């Protein structure tokens, strides 16, 4: 199966602090992939490097075979991104933000109109169409950001802690969208520290710890790898694997 996203030996440090130490990842088409790890493991740094907000010190990234250092604009048009703490232009209305997001991604006007109507309906934002973003609640802002990230129908949707601050109905809508995208052979790549979310939503996960990929695979594979037994939860697997890494480092 061809990988939609491929990270090979990615390194990144902030001054003296190493955030990523030779991270390798492979994410395939038509899956929901979770990046899990403790605080400071390098999840957000990894996501920001993929979407082009940070530059890596060393390594390579490809999305659908496109190298961002050669074709940065084509590369980015394949991606939709929602950051963890969403800042949106407070001075625009919900509809205006979606128009802006679509325009800068060169979505044709007719398609853009249809998608705006469709996503406003899906995210239950129709009544807020003409409302300034400033006046929205945190959850509504998150849903608006999600609609904005989907407006150009990206092949790869990247989300940093996507369910935080969203009400149960919103979470349900988001899960349905993820499933629909998988049916359309698109990919969802999310980072989360909520292990139950990752367990329920993702086909495969990668556990990263101290900037390295400790293990990748579905839950069954990870259970085998960590020798935690057939009924072990992702939390138990996670604790075992990260603990082992810690012990290895100490030795």
């Amino acid at each position, binding site marked *: 199966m061809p990988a939609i996203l491929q990270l090979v030996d990615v390194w990144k440090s902030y001054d003296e602090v190493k955030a990523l130490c030779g991270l390798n990842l492979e994410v395939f088409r038509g899956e929901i992939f979770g990046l899990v790890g403790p605080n400071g493991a390098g999840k957000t740094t990894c996501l*920001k490097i993929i979407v082009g907000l940070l530059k890596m010190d060393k390594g390579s990234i490809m999305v659908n075979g496109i190298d961002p250092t050669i074709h940065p604009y084509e590369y*980015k*048009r394949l991606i939709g991104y929602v*950051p963890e703490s969403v*800042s949106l*232009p407070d001075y625009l209305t919900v509809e*205006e933000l979606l*128009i802006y997001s679509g325009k*800068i991604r060169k979505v044709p006007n007719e398609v853009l109109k249809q998608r705006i109507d469709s996503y406003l309906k899906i995210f239950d934002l129709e009544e807020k169409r003409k409302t300034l973003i*400033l006046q929205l609640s945190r959850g509504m802002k998150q849903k608006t950001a999600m609609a904005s990230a989907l407006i150009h129908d990206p092949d790869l949707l990247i989300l940093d802690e996507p369910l935080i601050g969203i009400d149960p109905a919103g979470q349900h809508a988001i899960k349905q969208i993820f499933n629909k995208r998988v049916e359309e052979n698109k990919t969802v790549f999310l980072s989360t520290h909520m292990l139950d979310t990752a367990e329920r939503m993702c086909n495969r996960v990668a556990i990263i710890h101290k900037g390295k990929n400790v293990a990748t695979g579905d839950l069954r594979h990870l259970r085998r790898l960590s020798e935690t037994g057939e009924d072990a939860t992702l939390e138990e697997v996670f604790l075992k694997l990260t603990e082992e890494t810690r012990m290895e480092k100490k030795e």
Partner: protein
Amino acid sequence: MSIFRDLYMFKVKVFLGALRSSKSSLLLIAIYVLGLLPSSVGMSLTVVNLVKGGIDLTTYVDLFSIILNVIFVFLLLFSLRGYVAYEYEQNVIFTSPVDPRTYLLASLLTDITAISIFLFPAYLFLIIIIVSLQLSVLSTAMVVTCLILVSFFIYFIKTSLSILESHLQNIIIRAIIVLVAALLLFPAVEYALQHQIGYSKLPYPSTLVTEIVLRSIQGSPLNPMLIFGVLTYFSLSLILFLHCSKIILFLHCSKIDIYRYAKPIPLVSPFDTSMRTQTIKTGQNIRFFSKVGSYISLNIESKSLQIFLIKKEIVRMTRDGSFFIVLLFYVLLSIISFLSRSSEAAFPMLLFLLSFYAFLVPAMLMSNWRIVEQDLLWIPITAGLDFVFITKAIMYTFVITGFTVPAILILILSVVNNFEPITSLVLVASSSIIGSSINLYTAMEFLSKKRRATPSIMISYVAMFLSGLLISPVYIYALANIFLGFDILIRIVFAVPTLVYSVAIYRVFSKKIERKALNIELS
């Protein structure tokens, strides 16, 4: 008593928090001091000279009453919001078992402390007057007492009306506030239109206070009725305030405390240059200006992406108040320049002054752009949009705004005064072209990780300094035109290289901006 003291100390520390936390706040204080001290000295010396030359009491009672009443009305209109409390007070004090009366008294004392600290240029103003005019102890005491009494009078009335508004929450109390404001301003409006009534003929609190102060300074005898009047007004305001405190006490005793009525407002410490404070202010601006700015909106139909992005910038500037600030800046500048000109011959200088400050406009616009847009850059960066579209949209919008607003004003003034405006228009055009590119370049330079924490105001100073340097050849062109009196043909001939120079600077910095844009990192 110890709760009262602790509460007071806590509130003062929070209020002055910005001064303790940031060096740039100290820089702002230095600018405040350096900016106001010369004005205080200048104004006090003007008053001293006026008094020594003999003043017309009626005119100056009218003049000072207008100033006092405008301040009073400005503060009074805040009562329409009802009783307000800072968010931190709601979170920290209102959730603890503090008696509302203790809180109110601590607030009163904090406000007095804060006002006393920040009014220090006024002390210098008073000291110079007292020393220069060799006022007696009695006259000095009279002046100082009157000023203190009128300050308390305004404070008591404002606080009482706020409490009443929160307590009663009906239209009558709001109507009373508006009516009082209208009554206070009526003589000023009438004075400006017909010049018949004026404050000096009416027994307003401001009239009595200014007359006592001016007579004390002048050394004229005081009518005891004036003192009686001031004391009466003060006593009435105090009674009203105490009555409103009783309302609070009653509410507290009946288990319905004032805290329930206090509307939360964010705390903005004086001289606070932090991004948090700027964001709060921007949020307030957007709430206010979006009502006006909603007439201009983004729509899907734009065919050109560049025009769409320019329109988006215009929408932002309308809704975050940037455009209003530019308008206000030029209106105030025009009024000041117009009032301060001595003769028709000074008109070219007036236009020069008006266009001289044009280089400040891109700095003002860029400062707002940084506050509003810095955290939003992730949207275009992750969208796969060539960042040059964004930088061009910003620069074009800034050039258009920086040129159009003053140009319209200059053209109007030129037509009214029958004067040729070429020099000023060239100066305004060059200032906006050079200023916009340099300000954007500086903003991009400070987007780098190590410099991102630099306060917006510091970045504006750097950009203004650079702009001033590079615009200086254009100033030389303008001054040469004024003082050497070139005819229109030579002015036009010299205008061409001046504009070419500005465009060249613009292009050089545009290239630098494009290179910078490729390497933006947002952590």
